[in-house]
């Protein structure tokens, strides 16, 4: 028997007995970031493909939510900061080694760009919209001319943002469960899947609905593949990675993860979507709610499990 105990009564709040410094704020922030990234990617991508009129919800309407998503996300992040009065220090320098730093900068840049992106479509979706000031009109006009470049920048930044939500975690090699580079792509895919599901739900045309349902099915397939890979990678890793994986393969996280993330969050909605494509009647709200909930659950569980996984010594 090996008995390893701390005998000095160490009980640092939120650190002991198991690390739990990150509560709901960070996973919620990661979810919103991923969702915003997904929406912008679809909007920008289909703009570049010239399908903005065919897919109005995806291209023109959904980006309206992005500043709110990012805003709420930033508020959650700020709520998590324990020394919040010094939050401005985030923007006194850029630290490339710190995902927290470049993530913050990405958000800082992407927010005005997303507003600019919305501005481009305002007159399309609200025909009576009037910018009132000539200066604004000039700017919007200029933006419309730069639409393709803006779309390209947005795609790039959104991929960074979507990946960042995972890389923020995978950069911590102190937490073996997070310490896999697949978290970035996984969270990006997951964010894309959530936005595809939302677009499908809100879309008015059969074309748009079926397209995004199909996209979502593919994305969920990729997600499932990456989840399998996540565990394969861990199981092929060092002792600490194996133990981290085992938290999900018999350990404390097994039931919540496989039930809420994989079962209810991926497998069930993907089945419903497949049935939908076969013209079976499925209440449209069901798959999208399941996917969003699964998305949230994925981040909550990953953030929690990562903190519970550790090196042994």
């Amino acid at each position: 028997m090996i008995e390893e105990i701390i005998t000095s009564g160490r009980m640092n709040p939120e650190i002991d007995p198991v690390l739990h410094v990150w509560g709901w704020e960070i996973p919620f922030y990661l979810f919103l970031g991923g969702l915003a990234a997904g929406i912008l990617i679809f909007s920008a991508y289909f703009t570049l493909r010239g399908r903005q009129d065919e897919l109005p919800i995806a291209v023109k309407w959904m980006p309206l939510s992005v500043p709110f998503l990012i805003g709420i996300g930033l508020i959650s992040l700020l709520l998590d900061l324990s020394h919040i009065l010094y939050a401005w220090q985030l923007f006194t320098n850029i630290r490339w080694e710190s995902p927290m730093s470049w993530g913050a900068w990405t958000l800082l840049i992407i927010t005005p760009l997303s507003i600019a992106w919305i501005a481009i479509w305002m007159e399309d979706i609200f025909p009576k919209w009037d910018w009132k000031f000539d200066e604004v009109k000039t700017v919007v006009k200029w933006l419309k001319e730069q639409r393709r470049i803006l779309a390209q920048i947005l795609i790039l930044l959104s991929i960074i943002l979507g990946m960042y939500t995972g890389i923020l975690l995978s950069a911590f090699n102190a937490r073996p469960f997070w310490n896999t580079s697949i978290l970035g792509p996984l969270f990006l895919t997951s964010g894309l899947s959530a936005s595809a599901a939302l677009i499908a739900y809100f879309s008015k045309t059969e074309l748009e609905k079926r397209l995004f349902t199909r996209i979502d099915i593919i994305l969920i397939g990729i997600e499932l593949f990456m989840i399998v890979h996540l565990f394969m990678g861990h199981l092929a890793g060092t002792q600490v990675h194996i133990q981290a994986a085992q938290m999900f393969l018999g350990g404390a996280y097994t039931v919540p993860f496989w039930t809420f993330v994989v079962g209810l969050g991926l497998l069930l909605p993907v089945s419903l979507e497949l049935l939908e494509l076969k013209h079976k009647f499925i209440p449209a709200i069901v798959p999208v709610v399941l996917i969003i909930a699964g998305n949230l659950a994925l981040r909550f569980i990953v953030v929690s499990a990562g903190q519970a996984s550790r090196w042994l010594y």
Partner: protein
Amino acid sequence: MRYAMAVDTQKCVGCNDCVVACQTENDVPIGHCRDWIVEVTTGTYPDLGLEIRSERCNHCANAPCVRTCPTEASHYAAGGIVLVEEDECIGCKACITSCPYDARFIHPEGYVDKCTFCIHRVEKGQNPACVSVCPTHAMIFGNLDDPNSDISKAMATRKWKSLIPEAGTEPKVFYLL
């Protein structure tokens, strides 16, 4: 200059004096600690082994906390001592999650706090409080770059280990075996 610490597990009795001394020296609030004692028992009665370690921030040469800090609040100070600048810390806790030793904590005032190797004492030529108080003289503090320092000599002549070197952190608290 490379400051480091060696804890002689042969001498350490796990009395906790280092923990109290740190607490009073640095006004660490009750309920928090910058250093702590780990006891590892191995074997089956009556064939047993016991290793006792006084642990703290390892002042890693490749410190993940410094790497993941978004504001440079966590930084290397003179001699490689890893410190947190209170006024630059935003409390994002990235450093806390990045530390494989769980050596950091959130000070009730909001910033992240941890062992400083008592740099305020070291600069005056004194040992850190934990070292200076240890009843069994189980701890050695000094400069690894000085081959004549007590710590360099102990490291040269004794078997030793550090904690989770495989995490790539290059810790600078060593355990003499």
